[in-house]
């Protein structure tokens, strides 16, 4: 039991900074892009974190139990479709197409759930610390232990995410808001093309 509790926490703490820097290109433009109050910035980050939480839980169960039955190809395809979805969402948001009042073909509520959705897609996405956690979960071969492992790994990595909300002070500066839009579009396009490239390669 010690391995199931201590190992994921230490793994999360030691690799969390890497996790955070992987999510940073997606989350930072999102936080800086629009002028908000500190409380709202925290809400955005918390929604993102909850999204990641569900992503991790889903994958904890998936790899802890079903891991024995799925193939690498299926997993890779799933990862890169999720990455494409995440990139597309960031591009839409950066272009201002996801709005509360006059969104294009999207419900006004969609804007509020976008950070959650992005976090979810980020949570099920492949990054090196995540891959390392998968390797350990693969060794467990158990459904609930898999979930517990990913849950604790998530909590440990989350320590690094909360301070991102304080980046919100940059969204008070016009120049930074503009640059955040551009970086959101560029990052979105880079990962979108990369995920298409990998999907084609896999197929």
């Amino acid at each position, binding site marked *: 039991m010690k391995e199931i509790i201590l190992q994921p926490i*230490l793994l999360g*703490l*030691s690799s*969390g*900074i890497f996790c955070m*820097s*992987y999510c*940073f*290109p997606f989350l*930072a*433009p999102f936080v*800086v892009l629009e002028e908000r*109050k*500190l409380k709202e*910035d925290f809400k955005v980050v918390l929604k993102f974190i909850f999204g990641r939480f569900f992503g991790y839980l889903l994958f904890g169960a998936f790899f802890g139990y079903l*891991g*024995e*039955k*799925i*193939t*690498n*190809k299926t*997993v890779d395809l799933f990862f890169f479709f999720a990455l494409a979805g995440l990139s597309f969402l960031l591009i839409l948001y950066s272009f201002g197409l996801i709005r509360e009042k006059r969104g294009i073909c999207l419900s006004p509520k969609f804007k509020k759930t976008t950070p959650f959705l992005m976090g979810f897609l980020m949570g099920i996405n*492949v*990054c*090196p610390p995540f*891959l*390392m956690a998968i*390797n350990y979960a*693969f*060794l467990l071969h158990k459904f609930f232990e898999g979930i517990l492992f990913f849950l604790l790994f998530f909590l440990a990595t989350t*320590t*690094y995410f*909360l*301070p991102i909300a*304080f980046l*919100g*002070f*940059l969204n*008070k*500066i016009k*120049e*930074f808001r*503009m*640059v*955040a839009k*551009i*970086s959101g579009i*560029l*990052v979105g396009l*880079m*990962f979108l093309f*990369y995920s298409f490239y990998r999907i084609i390669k896999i197929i």
Partner: protein
Amino acid sequence: MSPKILFKLCQISGWVLLFLAILFFISGYGMTKQIIPLDLATWLHNQILPVPFLIFLFLHILFPLRNFLRRFPFKIILAVLFLIFIVGLAGFFIYRSEKTSKESSKDFYPAKFYEALDNKIVRCNLCPNRCVLSPGQIGLCKARKNVDGKLYSMVYGKIASQHLDPIEKKPLFHFLPGSLIYSISTTGCNLQCKFCQNWQISQVFPWEVETKKMTPEEVVEEAIKSGAKAIAFTYNEPVIYYEYMYDIAKLAKERGLKTVVVSSGYINPEPLKELLPYIDAFKIDFKGISDKFYQKMTVSGKVEPVMEVMKIIKESGVWLEIVNLVIPGENDSDEDLKNLILWVRDNLGTDVPLHFTRFHPDYKLSNLPPTPIETLKKARKMAMDLGLKYVYIGNVDDVEGSTTYCPESKEPAIVRRGFFVLENNLDGEGFCKSGEKIPGIWK
């Protein structure tokens, strides 16, 4: 964001940072001077403290950063730097991800001894664990992986540790006494003993520690250059890097070097028999006499396969020495020791050297005390009374318990202290002055 909040944050985080810095210093000092338990100090210093330190440092600089930004006349320059940082970070991760995906399959080496089952599932038949692996899964040994229906060794050519050791350190007492042996290891192990003394390399994946890439040719070349007479596959469990060990051993024999395997003996008969022609000596860790002990102390061990392995080695004529690590309260009862000695005597003969070594608290058994020296002496006496001719005690400074005696005349043949030979009274063929022959490999 209100400057008041940022200022307060700056103040509080400053004090916390000071506190963390003191703790960081104390734990660092504790690591070197051992004023607090080493494990605790290392854990605090390397794993726990850097996290809050980074977070509070970030919070601490927010207020000055805000003031700087407000007064800085060319905000657009800073904004562009922000853009470059984010896009650069994204580019870096794409590059890393691509590099990792290419390296992951390129770096592996095709494994032997496995069978393909349905749906690209494989069963590894190298050791009695017989792991059944779906694509992407890694064996219990953390060294073999199923990649798309084929089994690969992830540790081939990746040296985690290399040293020039005295042969007595293995311990092998009847094999080229006083010589140096070129010793290597990779990462991983198929037993995962709770008392592992080399857990830093044996209980990890190959990417978790720094490894050095070496081909079998380079290993043999390095061993010859070092002046060693033999190569030892040791430190972690060599069975799990079977293919690498096999290739090195074969090459070493061609170049006139001897080869030694220091193992737990948890291997299936087929791969063992294929390896034996290229090995000169085995040191087997006979951890305990019962399944109960193996099940309690290892990941999924049974004693029967280890016994079978020792019998095969003995029958093949390859030199064999046995080590039993005596752990207080776990395998040190008179009954356990007697049963182990009797099994060795009745199945391997009285000529097989048996070493009782002292346990030191480590890894997951750091709560237990070291073995009392009296227990080791008692075990040695018991083994000699039951007819074993060459019984030693190890991991203690005891000249008598480390000395080889001629069985009939009782003259000291080789006197040792620790890992060093003080006196060698045998001739080159292993004969005592009284004419008695001591079994072993002496040249």
